[in-house]
């Protein structure tokens, strides 16, 4: 999933300062799973904004709506009827959601309530960890299912640096050394031969070669 964290209230307030009628829009997919932009968080943020305005003697109107996905037009369309009645959209979507909503409603300002952080997994309740950088050239098959690009602080392809100690990374001792995991897992899987191989330089053009990436699938385009 794509994870995100809510911005500090003061930063959100500063962006909303010129507006009175606010449409607070959540997203029911990734950011709901990581408890930053789902229906519940929309309710909490809208209440916080109302309460704050009341304390400061301002009047605002904050209307709450949560759609299934802010990154897919057929779901964004559910906002169409309401949008015209508000000065601003406060999006609790990820960066993709905020931009898709802004694209559909170019006349209404859209401001982000979240900082989009990473692609990761829910490790345990209240703990999300990054494990994919979307490099466009997955090599997990050679690294025992541990991504060195993401989980090694230096993105090393050819073994651990000199800072691996007792299974921990020197950069963040709370994080396991990715290469310790790779070495252990390949050893136990009887694939230590993969540890001797020299991996050539990565092809980063698959990640950032010509600006924003696109996927075009003709087989998916025919019906519309």
């Amino acid at each position: 999933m794509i994870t995100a964290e809510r911005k500090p209230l003061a930063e959100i307030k500063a962006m909303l300062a010129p507006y009175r009628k606010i449409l607070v829009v959540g997203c029911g997919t990734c950011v709901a799973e990581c408890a930053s932009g789902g229906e519940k968080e929309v309710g909490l943020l809208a209440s916080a904004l109302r309460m704050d305005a009341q304390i400061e003697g301002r009047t605002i109107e904050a209307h709450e709506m949560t759609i299934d996905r802010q990154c897919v037009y057929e779901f964004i369309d559910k906002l169409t009827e309401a949008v015209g009645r508000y000065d601003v959209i406060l999006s609790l979507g990820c960066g993709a959601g905020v931009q898709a909503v802004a694209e559909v409603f170019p006349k209404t300002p859209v401001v982000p309530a979240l900082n989009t952080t990473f692609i990761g997994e829910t490790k345990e309740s209240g703990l999300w960890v990054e494990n994919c950088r979307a490099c466009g050239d997955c090599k997990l098959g050679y690294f025992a299912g541990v991504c060195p690009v993401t989980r090694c602080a230096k993105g090393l392809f050819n073994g651990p640096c000199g800072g691996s100690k007792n299974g921990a990374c020197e950069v963040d001792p709370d994080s396991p050394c990715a290469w310790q995991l790779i070495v252990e897992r390949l050893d136990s899987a009887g694939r230590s031969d993969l540890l001797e191989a020299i991996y050539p330089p990565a092809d980063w053009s698959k990640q950032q070669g010509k600006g924003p990436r696109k996927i075009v699938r003709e087989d998916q385009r025919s019906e519309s």
Partner: protein
Amino acid sequence: MKAESNLKNVLTQHNFAVTAECGPPKGADPVVIQKKGDILKGYVDSVNVTDNQTGVVRLSSMAACAILRQEGLDPVLQMVTRDRNRIALQSDVLGASSLGIRNILCLSGDHQSFGNQPQAKGVFDIDSIQFIQAVRRMRDEGLIIGGEKLSEPPRLFIGAVANPFADPFDYRVVRLGKKAAAGAEFIQTQCIYNLKRFAEWIRQVRDRGLDRKVYILGGVTPLKSARMAEYMSRQVAGMDVPDNIISRMKGVDPKDQRREGIAIAVETIMALKYMEGVHGVHIMAIEWEDVVPQIVEEAGLYPRPETSRE
């Protein structure tokens, strides 16, 4: 003017090599480098210049190497992959060779979060092993990454680092083997305080025959104080300072601790001199370069061999 690497000559002529480290200043003054060069001249075969070590901005390694070369020393250009992508790295390799620098040490570099620019973007386009391989191909085949031909290949003696004290221990020698296979010709190790563990590592190195593929220079850093020993033991990852070293430093009066640190360094060098598979020492006297001549003399490594020069 030396056309070839002095370090390479010393090693290929079967001498026990001595290199030292020179940290560039946090400023633009060339005199600091010249002074450090003057202190080391004649006592070491080559001088490494660190590349923004620990992610702290300093005078560039390339510039400092050029200054040392003007002073008649044989510099080892340290280059990390943290700050430059493959375009800049390869360009600087050519630039170094054109300036007459004849040794390069390829590293990934300390993570930027440790330095004084923690908000910097870490590049890590390629890793140290990929970098070694790239430099070797540039030199031997005259080709850059991707296969395009150079008009003139760089002339460099290619080095890498090894840390026998980091984990996973048994993988350390595998990684050294990869560095040798990638094209490294000499290796400088992390500072050695735990000789027992180092001896175990060098045994694994010999078992794989790697001591016949690369020249191995053991790293030695003289301790200035008991506090420094404790700090290195607790705070510096990948550093192994055993309790007996710490208690030995603590056991002497603070005003004599520098003397004790020098004694430990000299004893370590003597042990390394007689260890099969070790071809030299690399003395990293951190901001204490003026102690190097004394250590070299006390270890019986002075004068340094005269190698054939052009």
